[in-house]
């Protein structure tokens, strides 16, 4: 018989057929692959033997096969008969078995098990997923802003080579100094670190002849400007040599946006003549939509670089570094070039000494564009990172305490043959699944949050159009999720892998955490408190700064003031007299509008960009040779300006109509200026002059003193300010300031009407209320504070939950001990004290570490603080007190539970 089974027998059927038949029938049992293979081998061999026997007896192959299959299925399903035998034996694949199957099968198993576990504990799952969703959502949102504003490459060729540079003069209190064209030409021709560089100056044009007159942001740029960025025009060409003629603005380039808006995207725009400030200018090219330099410029005209001009330090510079040149290398090259030039031109730089090097700041263009948002963004992304760490510590603790409850489950699985590694993998799968669910929900949060952020007023966050959920942001979210899963999943997984079978299987084991797990939980609580303190202290400092900022007296009253900008276009308004006559008529007419209390003009309204400055010296206080002159802000204003701004005259008088062009020159100074030059003297009657002014009537007599006015921002340190009568020094572009008795916006159309009545080709632009200006100047701070406060609140809530959980579990594990103590006469107070002590120890350790950490971290906040030291003791005290209070309250609940332990019940158990 055995011979008949030999493989060499010609009637041998294909054994794989039988194996397949068997395997199909066993599939529903889901056996471990190895076991299934054994069974199939044995049963297939049987069928094979039977088949061969039938064939030997003379049955046809088909009949023999039919008989064998009938016998196989004639007694009911094979699987159902085998189920009890092979399943219950414990040798089949339950979760306990060491990994035998493929990784994919194991993963499937782990995931389905994890899903079941999550479903069994919906509350726990919800808390974890929600905590993570908020954390990951916040992190993703802020990262997408960081990515768009700080990280995403600028849309120019090799953007990492693009830098801006400018001088700086701390001794003159000037953070940034632009260059004169003579100096720029020298640098451009001598410097070796740059492929090319360009100079530009921002200003604005009024376009007429295409409907209502409109004011457009513009820039005058040197011929190389577009070449520096490596951007080709969409239509037409850029400027060519010879177009930088003195009679400027003959040719112009326009932005994509302006082309669409004003010319409907008509490609015949190239060659068309537009009127800029009334002068004809031929459009030679249209730039592509992504080109946005500088700022919001929509028209570019050629800049004439005069190598002999040194009087206007007003050019900004941008350059492309040669490949391989570092920022520091480029900066040193610039310094050497400027030094060499200054020493060779004693006529322009008489005070230059060989060992006195030029002070130059050079930074990547992308950083320049991010501007003031850079620090707050970095602070926020760090804060959200800290918050995520706290959340992870919290979740790790939750998992640890649940692991304690699940100790027996783990032990049973170990007994069934699960390797520690297998159990750890299973737990990590659960963590990964929780993190994944949190991330999915978090991304939804991020989408919603980004929608809100996009609603912010334009111009608050640069490159806002670049902020979106792109692949890099998604990659970040995935990375953060993975790190979170590891952070909160690793500790419980490692603990579970070292599960102690004996103790855990013993009856009466209460599901309390082992000593090691408890220590780990304690560490997490300490970490949470430490990190929370850092966040609380940081946000406390910012909140206090903000409060200080709001209480700053800006030197004006913002309510009921309307601000609007006007420009008398040159050369249609060819001289100061024409300009004055235009503005006088505007002022006269606006003053007649019902509800207008006061109206004035200034070349720069507070909280707008730009700040005209001069080297003003006081008579008898001239700086000694080599000593720097302190620079003053200079504003040429009309008599109504102080009234319109609500600025009181502290001493003397304001300007009058009689301070005309031919009257004696007079000035009003602010108290900072008065204190600086005449700390113990009367400022009134003193005389001032511009450094270097040698004209006949160069003295300005001080006739009044006003409070310091915050010009660039509420947080700026008070600068020296000098006011002069507009009639004695005229500018073409002015801000109209109107104080009204009613809602200021209701005046806009009336004011527009009056301006148009004086000159229909002059538009009113940049119209807003002073209150809007103030609030928009605070918006970034408000946002930063709001977010940071939210993070800090979330942090200490999480810390509270964390310590509550740990103490609760501690109390649950010590019920018997408390019972005994109470039975032996311990009073409630003693027990309460015992429990609270543990909590206070943990919180205290965290707070001490947090205080040390905070003193190190707050230094990064310094540039955001106002009127508060980074080591502000009250803030730290309050933060500490808040956390101690939180800890005590969180511990009080389980502590009271401990005092209510009934000794009789506990001891009987």
């Amino acid at each position, binding site marked *: 018989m055995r011979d008949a089974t030999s493989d060499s027998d010609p009637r041998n059927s294909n*054994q794989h057929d039988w194996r397949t038949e068997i395997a199909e029938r066993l599939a529903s049992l889901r056996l471990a692959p190895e076991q299934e293979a054994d069974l199939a081998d044995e049963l297939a*061999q049987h069928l094979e033997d039977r088949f061969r026997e039938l064939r030997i007896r003379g049955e046809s192959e088909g009949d023999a096969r039919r008989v064998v299959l009938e016998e196989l*299925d004639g007694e009911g399903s094979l699987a159902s008969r085998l189920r*009890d*035998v092979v399943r219950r034996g414990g040798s089949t694949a339950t979760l306990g078995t060491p990994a035998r199957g493929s990784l994919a099968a194991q993963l499937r198993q782990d995931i389905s098990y994890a899903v079941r576990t999550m479903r069994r504990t919906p509350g726990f799952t919800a808390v974890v997923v929600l905590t993570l969703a908020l954390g990951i959502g916040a992190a993703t949102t802020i990262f997408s802003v960081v990515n768009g504003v700080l990280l995403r490459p600028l849309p120019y060729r090799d953007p990492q080579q693009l830098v801006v540079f400018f001088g700086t003069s701390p001794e003159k209190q000037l953070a940034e100094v632009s260059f004169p064209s003579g100096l720029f030409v020298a640098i451009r021709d001598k410097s070796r670190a740059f492929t090319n560089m360009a100079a530009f100056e921002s200003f604005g044009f009024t376009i007429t002849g295409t409907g209502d007159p409109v004011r457009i942001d513009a820039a005058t740029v040197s011929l190389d400007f577009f070449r520096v960025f490596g951007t080709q025009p969409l239509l037409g060409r850029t400027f060519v040599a010879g177009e930088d003629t003195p009679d400027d603005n003959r040719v112009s380039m326009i932005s994509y946006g302006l082309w669409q808006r004003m010319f409907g995207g008509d490609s015949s725009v190239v060659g068309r003549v537009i009127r800029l400030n009334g002068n004809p200018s031929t459009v030679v090219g249209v730039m592509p939509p992504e080109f946005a330099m500088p700022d919001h410029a929509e028209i570019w005209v050629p800049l004439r670089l005069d190598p002999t001009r040194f009087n206007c330090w007003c050019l900004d510079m941008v350059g492309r570094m040669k490949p391989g040149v570092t920022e520091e290398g480029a900066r040193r090259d610039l310094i050497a070039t400027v030094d060499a030039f200054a020493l060779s031109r004693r006529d322009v730089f008489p005070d230059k000494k060989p060992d006195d090097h030029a002070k130059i700041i050079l930074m990547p263009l992308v950083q320049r564009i991010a501007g003031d948002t850079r620090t707050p963004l970095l602070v926020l992304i760090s804060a959200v990172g800290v918050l995520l760490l706290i959340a992870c510590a919290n979740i790790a603790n939750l998992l640890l305490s649940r692991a304690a409850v699940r100790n027996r489950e783990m032990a049973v699985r170990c007994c069934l043959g699960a390797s520690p590694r297998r159990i750890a993998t299973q737990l990590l799968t659960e963590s990964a699944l929780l993190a994944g669910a949190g991330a999915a929900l978090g991304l939804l949060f991020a989408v919603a949050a980004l929608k809100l952020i996009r609603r912010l007023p334009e111009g608050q966050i640069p490159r806002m159009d670049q902020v979106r959920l792109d692949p890099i942001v998604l990659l970040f979210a995935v990375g953060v999720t993975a790190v979170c899963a590891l952070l909160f999943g690793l500790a419980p997984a490692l603990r579970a892998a070292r599960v102690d079978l004996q103790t855990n299987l013993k009856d009466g084991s209460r599901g309390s955490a082992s000593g090691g797990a408890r220590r780990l939980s304690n560490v997490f609580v300490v970490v949470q408190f430490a990190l929370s303190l850092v966040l609380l202290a940081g946000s406390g400092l910012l909140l206090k700064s903000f409060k200080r900022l709001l209480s700053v007296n800006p030197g004006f009253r913002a309510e009921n003031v309307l601000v609007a900008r006007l420009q008398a276009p040159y050369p249609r308004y060819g001289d100061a007299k024409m300009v004055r006559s235009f503005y006088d008529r505007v002022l006269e007419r606006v003053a007649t509008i019902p509800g207008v209390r006061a109206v004035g003009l200034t070349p720069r309204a507070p909280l707008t960009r730009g700040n005209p400055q001069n080297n003003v010296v006081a008579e008898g206080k001239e700086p000694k040779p080599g000593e720097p002159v302190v620079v003053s802000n200079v504003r040429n204003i009309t008599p109504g300006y102080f009234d319109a701004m609500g600025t009181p005259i502290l001493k003397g008088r304001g300007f009058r109509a009689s301070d005309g062009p031919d009257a004696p020159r007079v000035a009003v100074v602010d108290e900072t200026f008065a204190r600086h030059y005449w700390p113990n003297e009367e400022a009134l009657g003193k005389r001032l002059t511009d450094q270097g002014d040698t004209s006949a009537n160069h003295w300005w007599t001080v006739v009044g003193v006003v409070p310091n006015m915050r010009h660039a921002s509420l947080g700026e340190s008070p600068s020296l300010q000098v006011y002069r009568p507009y009639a004695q020094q005229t500018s073409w572009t002015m801000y109209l300031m109107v104080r009204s008795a009613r809602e200021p916006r209701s005046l806009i159309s009336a004011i527009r009407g009056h301006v148009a009545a004086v000159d229909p080709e002059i538009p009113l632009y940049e119209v807003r209320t002073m209150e809007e200006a103030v609030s928009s100047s605070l918006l970034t701070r408000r946002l930063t504070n709001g977010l940071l406060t939210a993070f800090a609140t979330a942090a200490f809530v999480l810390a509270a939950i964390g310590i509550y959980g740990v103490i609760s579990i501690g109390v649950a594990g010590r019920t018997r001990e408390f019972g005994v103590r109470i039975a032996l006469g311990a009073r409630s107070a003693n027990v309460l004290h015992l429990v609270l002590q543990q909590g206070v120890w943990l919180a205290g350790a965290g707070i001490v570490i947090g205080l040390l950490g905070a003193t190190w971290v707050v230094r990064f906040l310094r540039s955001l603080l106002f009127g508060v030291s980074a080591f502000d003791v009250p803030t730290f005290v309050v933060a500490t007190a808040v956390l101690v209070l939180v800890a005590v309250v969180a511990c009080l609940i389980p502590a009271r539970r401990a005092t209510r332990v009934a000794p009789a019940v506990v001891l009987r158990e």
Partner: protein
Amino acid sequence: MVQAMLDRELKKGSAELLILSLVEHEPRHGYELSKLIDSRSNGAIRFHVASLYPLLYRLEKRGWIEGRWVEKAGQRRRRYYRLTAEGRRVLAAQRRNWRQFVEAIARITGVQHA
């Protein structure tokens, strides 16, 4: 029909005894066992795959028999079952019970032991 019923009833009560007896003196594989039962009962009792192997596994799980893979040159591997010490005790007890049962039936029905 009657044959089938007898078959089922007898198998239920006696199957364990049959298997244990057949592996008492030498290890046998599954097909061999089914052939032996078939031939020695003259075809009255038949075990096919779906009934034989669950039974074998159950006996093995109880520790009465023990299966072992044996590979011989030129053949596929086969699983041979042998009686364990525990199985030997069970077999003795079952034989005793079976004999008492058959004798009791015989006394009542007058059917003589073959």
